[in-house]
């Protein structure tokens, strides 16, 4: 229909503090795309072309407003030497971390994204998507922040212990993880994607506010300021409960915050003048809830998010479950697309 904005246009306005016709509708459709496309998860996370085709197929089916390049948060740690276990029906999980004693830290290197591990899967996926639809759809590459990669290099429990018992070693792992993230971000940007930084291990569900301030936040700051030098608008996604650290999030410099288990009104109050909010229908509610419940929740979220002064994106709090029934996701998207700002051109 003439006069209708496309996703690229809508996001473009949001990112320069303009009001689009309505908030972009961008549920985090990641591995769920494999289910739509009909491929197994091992293929999805190891073949960039398949990941791209699956993403494009899911986007055609649902009409959500962005493509997501994501396998799992261990992608950098694996390229640096940790071993991951691939599964046919779920995303890879950490099998064997590369660091089992601190002497190994100095041997770590920031991997070459073109030739190491599965990093090139992302680059192939981005390249294919960009060629196919980059003029209309923004492409987001989900890149783990240092804290999460460090946990993948050392093992989650060991790394959390390090933050208490061997903080210098923890920082050394974080430093090299940061270098790796920067290198990977650069490659994704050159392929045509905007980085979305994910730091699930830095969640209030896993660590304390103090640990976040000392070990996660400073590296988020460094990574975001590196990307800001290129004038890129950066989304920070932290899964789980972030309600006790919402006031700290703006310090990271993130332009958008994708929140999971925190109250949207609280986030609006804490950071709405500075940060665009992305959220936050609970992904788990997409499984058991009725069409009506999803629709009601989406309406509630929209009414809370739309007033955010810096802007709002309707999304899920975390990844759409692999086995989500399409009608459930469609319910969310349908309601989202009926929303509107009181926009007078």
């Amino acid at each position, binding site marked *: 229909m003439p006069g209708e*904005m496309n996703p690229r246009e809508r996001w*473009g306005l949001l990112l320069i503090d303009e009001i689009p016709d309505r908030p972009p509708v961008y549920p985090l459709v990641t591995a769920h795309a494999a289910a739509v496309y009909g491929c197994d998860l091992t293929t999805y996370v190891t073949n960039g072309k398949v990941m791209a085709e699956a993403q494009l197929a899911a986007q055609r089916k649902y009409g959500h407003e962005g493509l997501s390049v994501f396998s799992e948060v261990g992608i950098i740690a694996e390229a640096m030497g940790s071993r991951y276990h691939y599964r046919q029906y779920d995303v890879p999980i950490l099998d064997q971390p590369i660091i089992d004693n601190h002497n190994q830290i100095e041997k770590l290197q920031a991997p070459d994204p073109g030739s190491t591990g599965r990093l090139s899967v992302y680059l192939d996926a981005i390249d294919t998507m960009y060629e196919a639809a980059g*003029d209309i759809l923004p492409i987001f590459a989900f890149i783990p922040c240092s804290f999460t990669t460090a946990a993948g290099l050392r093992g989650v429990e060991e790394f959390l212990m390090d933050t208490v018992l061997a903080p210098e070693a923890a920082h050394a792992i974080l430093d090299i993880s940061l270098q790796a993230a920067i290198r990977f971000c650069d490659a994704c940007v050159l392929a045509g994607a905007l980085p979305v930084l994910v730091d699930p291990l830095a969640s209030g569900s896993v660590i304390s506010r103090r640990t976040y301030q000392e070990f996660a936040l400073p590296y988020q700051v460094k990574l975001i300021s590196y990307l800001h030098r290129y004038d*890129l608008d950066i989304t920070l996604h932290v899964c789980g409960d972030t309600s006790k650290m919402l006031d700290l999030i703006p310090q990271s410099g993130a332009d958008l915050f994708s929140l999971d288990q925190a109250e949207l009104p609280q986030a609006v109050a804490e950071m709405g003048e500075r940060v665009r909010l992305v959220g936050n229908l609970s992904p788990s509610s997409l499984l058991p809830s009725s069409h009506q419940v999803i629709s009601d929740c989406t309406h509630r979220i929209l009414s809370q998010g739309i007033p955010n002064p810096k802007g709002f994106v309707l999304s899920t709090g975390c990844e759409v479950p692999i086995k989500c029934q399409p009608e459930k996701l469609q319910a969310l998207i349908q309601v989202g697309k009926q929303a509107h700002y009181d926009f007078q051109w």
Partner: protein
Amino acid sequence: MIPAKQINYRQWHELFKEIPDERVKNTRYYHHLPDAEWSQYLFPPSTHAVYGNRLLRKMKFDNSPAALRLWGFVLSESERIYRARQAGMKVVAVVGDLGAITPLVYSFPDTVAFYPDCLWWTPFLMESRVLFNEAGQLGMGEDCCFVRAALGAFSKRAYFPKPNLIIGTVGATCDDMAAVMSGTEFIGNDVYYLELPARDTIPGNQQRQLSFLADRYREVATRLEAVTGHSFSEDRLHETVGKVNLIRSLISEVKDLAATTGPNPMGGMEMMNVEFAALSYYGDLEECTAVLGAFRDEMKARVEQQNGYPDQPLRIVWVTPPADPILQNYAEDLGARIVGSEYVINQSTPALKTEGDVFENLAEGQLAGSLMGSSRFRVDLVVDQVRRAKADGVIISGIFASTHCPYETRPIIDAVRKEGVPVLAFDVVAPGKKQLQSQINNRMEAFIESLRMRRSRRAG
């Protein structure tokens, strides 16, 4: 001095790391506003590619910081216009007059102008048919010049803010642009029309025309008073004309430098960006002057030191702006360099008079435009460039189905051939038509190869 080179977007992404942080931070527009991060614009092409300007991944760019600054300034124009409105400035869209009215607009405080017509290169830059499809849905299809992208942009409401005033110049200008204006009005925008007389060369008629047009400009000034809330000031217009003349002289100087007999000091697309700055100063008159000043300094130093691109010996005059920026890159890759151009905006480069009636001076500038009046005028402009630049060949990149430019292609070809200079003329292919594009590439290859052989034959 760093050797002049054309590099790709990957190389600029790396090279950008060497640019000091302070320089990145301090390269800003709208200096009269409080320091805001959004006003920085010194960023590499990769930044703009991520936001959908896909062609940048295929293009080559000059490797100087001055050229990067120019690109950053040009590519940030859309955001700049939005920021202007957010900061409370008035935004005036000027359609169809190509540079004549903007000094008047900028003479009003806190007022900026932009040319929606210039969106015609957006579909090429994004390798996208979105704006053309939008215009098509509104009844303007492939039987209109690429300038129809502007109608698509008006309809989409996502490429520039709603202008406080749209000034549409009609009459002795281009029909395609006039059609875009009426389409714009049709979808609900108020257009303030301004009638241009055709250039008349009969001596007695000239003064009459001048007075007629000067009166129209007086009316525009009154309209601008209503829109901006400021009264017109002749002193401010004088001051603005002084600044505009500085920009115009910088452009002329840069064009002369590009025609040097030494190695090619600059890329054709950078040169085109410089030339088009004459239209609306890309939305910030002061910063535009600084950008062009730094660019001129770079070129001057290069010419003095014979620092240019190697392997581009063949001298080309380019006629009609190539909506598709990759075309000039392609010619350069094949060994050509752009030593002259006729982009239908030549009237926006000569200095405006500063003595006498301010409105008549503006009118005189407008009446020198190659868009209006006989084709002979434009033909002579091209021939003059060919002679001055000692061109080996001329490339005319026409626009399929447009009503204006194509009619001048034939007489230009005839006149240039009479000069003994070969000409290649083709229609630029809209995005998404790969096979047609490869035909154009073949023709360019053959043409440039023939120029090369001609040269070596002449050399003995």
